[in-house]
């Protein structure tokens, strides 16, 4: 074995998976995991742990994998993370734990994500469940949103003995893990529901169909329903559109809508009632992970799919692995291309999109080179569907209905990074509601910080 090379992971062949919604990556088996774990040099001052937003003791769990004690490995991960099977699949490890791995200086870093996933999948198959704390402390905390931030915060507080209720606006818990990330990247029943069951096993209650700000306000939760503190992890919010002509035509969707129909409502499955556009040729505008998810969903539903992105490949915000998978499956990348207008037929449906070629100019405030139009380079893409994946702006529902909860100039809730403290006493926040759209693991980190902040607050109260 070449210690500089990671053990490759098995995947469903690109041609086959492009037509189904089964998971792309098969993950390691026992032997592969143990072999990969044996590459870890067990650094004393482990850089990988510093790269993990929830601070998993990575060398310790990998050591247990190497020894074949997967149960111990899963307990070590479980101390820090409530959602290891999710994180093992969707974390951008290359820029976090694996990005800091010493092995990565000369050769491949340890496949920490794949090992985490293996351990979590093994524990699930073995029926290993976290145990609720022996003693409750009698204090009640409300968590708003059952996405990665909320579940993490709820899990951590439950472990400390709090009586935690999570309020979810949709009919299923999981937030972006359920409505946003597709089945082929993150299986819903098998992985997401199972990890939510683990959080519930800690004693966390989840009440679905509660839109905080409408069904009940934060002030009512604190003043009338007896909660001692609230954590807001309500997520990213409203999808952005470009503001170009034709954007309200039939056949133009936000990536959120398209993915929610397919993921949460299971429109890809004929047995479910929710419809989704059956498209011939689709343009997905944007270059993030959400754009890749929407593109690969449309491809699986039978369309020819183009990613239209105004910068070059180097600037694509999506994970390299996602871009790689998308290309393998046959997504066409129209880079340095920007939409100008959506063309609409006489019945109000999309029939094409006028785009212009771009070139990269001087760096802008984000440090990336600013794309500028190439004069006279307009051309028309013939299309029947456009999916806008341009990010989100904060949902004002909670901030506008909570007295004393302040937002910044981007309308995100103001909260302390270290402990989630907001401008309102007893109210903590974290995740996309605070930072704007980011990643699952950063939201989990914020959920953890919020739990710590709430514990400090209620311990001193």
């Amino acid at each position: 074995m070449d210690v500089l090379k990671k053990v490759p992971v098995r995947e469903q062949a690109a041609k086959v998976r492009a037509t189904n919604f089964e998971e792309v990556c098969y993950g390691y088996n026992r032997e592969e995991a143990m072999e990969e774990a044996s590459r870890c040099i067990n650094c004393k001052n482990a850089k990988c742990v510093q790269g993990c937003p929830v601070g998993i003791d990575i060398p310790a769990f990998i050591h247990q994998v190497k020894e074949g004690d997967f149960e111990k490995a899963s307990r070590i991960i479980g101390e820090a993370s409530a959602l290891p099977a999710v994180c093992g699949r969707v974390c951008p490890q290359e820029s976090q734990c694996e990005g800091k791995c010493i092995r990565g200086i000369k050769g491949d870093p340890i496949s920490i994500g794949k090992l985490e996933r293996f351990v979590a999948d093994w524990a699930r198959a073995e029926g290993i469940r976290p145990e609720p704390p022996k003693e409750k402390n009698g204090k009640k905390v409300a968590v708003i949103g059952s996405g990665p931030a909320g579940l993490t915060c709820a899990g951590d507080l439950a472990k400390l003995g709090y009586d935690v209720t999570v309020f979810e606006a949709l009919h299923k818990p999981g937030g972006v893990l359920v409505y946003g990330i597709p089945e082929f990247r993150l299986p819903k029943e098998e992985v997401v529901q199972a990890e939510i069951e683990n959080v519930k096993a800690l004693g966390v209650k989840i009440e679905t169909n509660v839109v905080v700000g409408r069904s009940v306000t934060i002030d009512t939760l604190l003043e009338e329903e007896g909660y001692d503190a609230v954590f807001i992890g309500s997520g990213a919010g409203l999808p952005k559109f470009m503001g170009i002509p034709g954007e309200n035509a039939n056949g133009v969707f936000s990536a959120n809508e398209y993915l929610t129909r397919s993921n949460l409502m299971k429109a890809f499955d004929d047995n479910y009632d929710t419809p989704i556009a059956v498209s011939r040729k689709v343009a997905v505008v944007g270059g993030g992970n959400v754009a890749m998810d929407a593109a690969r969903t449309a491809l699986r539903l039978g369309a020819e799919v183009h990613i239209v992105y105004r910068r070059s490949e180097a600037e694509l915000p999506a994970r390299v692995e996602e871009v790689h998978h998308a290309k393998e499956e046959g997504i066409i990348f129209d880079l340095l291309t920007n939409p100008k207008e959506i063309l609409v037929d006489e019945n109000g449906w999309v029939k094409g999109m006028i785009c212009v070629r771009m070139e990269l100019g001087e760096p802008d405030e984000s440090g990336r080179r600013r794309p500028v139009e190439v004069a006279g380079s307009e051309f028309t893409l013939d299309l029947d569907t456009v999916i806008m994946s341009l990010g989100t702006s904060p949902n004002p529902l909670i901030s506008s209905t909570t007295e004393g909860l302040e937002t910044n100039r981007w309308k995100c809730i103001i909260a302390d990074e270290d402990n989630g403290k907001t401008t309102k006493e007893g109210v903590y926040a974290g995740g996309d509601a605070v930072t704007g759209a980011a990643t699952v693991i950063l939201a989990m980190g914020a959920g953890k910080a919020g739990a710590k902040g709430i514990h400090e607050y209620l311990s001193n109260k």
Partner: protein
Amino acid sequence: MITCKKGEKGGMYQITRAKQLTDQIYLFDLTAPRVANSCLPGQFVIVKMDEIGERIPLTICDYDRETGSITIVLQTVGASTMKMARLQVGDTFMDVTGPLGRPSEFTEMPIEELKKKKFLFVAGGVGSAPVYPQVKWLHEKGVGADVIIGARNKDLIILEDQMKEVAQNLYVTTDDGSYVRKGLVTDVIRDLVENQHRHYDYCVAIGPMIMMKFTALLTKELNIPTIVSLNPIMVDGTGMCGACRVTVGGEVKFACVDGPEFDGHLVNFDEAMKRQQMYKTYEGRAILKLQEGDTHHGGCGNCGGEV
């Protein structure tokens, strides 16, 4: 304080009254304490019948904070609403979320100011369901309002008796003249204002998009500020998906969080009507599937055929 929590599935969202109002319109009372406790006129719920069901936005027609019950009214337009129409007392909806949307603007105005205004409500067809709680709310606050109910024919008039109890004056009209009078709601408005010299400060028109469009055109001419309630396609109802976007005064708004009520003189109705057609072929196919089983594979000219 809410005592009935979800999780005890049997107790939640249980139907306590089911009534067919017309050929296509059904009324249900159901237990939904959180909704009943906080809803106001103008708001709506999203219901999902079972695991495989769609999320369907529906009007809250009435509510009882004491019993934790709400009344919803639905018109069968697609396969999902047809399935819901078959539900009976004792059955449950799997999910009911709400209240959603902003309450009617007037619920936030001082009562004294409301009492100075002359209100006109215009309800078209199933639009009586969202209009009723608004008129009732005003009536309970001592504010009188005139109401016009219009429908294609006598059989499609709903909530006439209930409306009579809360309206100052009730005018009923049918397109075909099969009941009370023959004419469109706009004919009645014109008659009231131009012939009977009634003055109105505030109009609320709710019904089919085409009726709201023409009512708004007329009230603009008559200089009556007018609110309409839009019912575009929605998925989550919390602002997340943007399916319900409408253009109001040249700006894109999301009906679920910015509405559903908007200034009728600023709404781009033509665009809104086109957007409502988005899933027509899918709905057609789903209805045929419901009626004929999964044996229909196109050729009817309605469903778009097999794709």
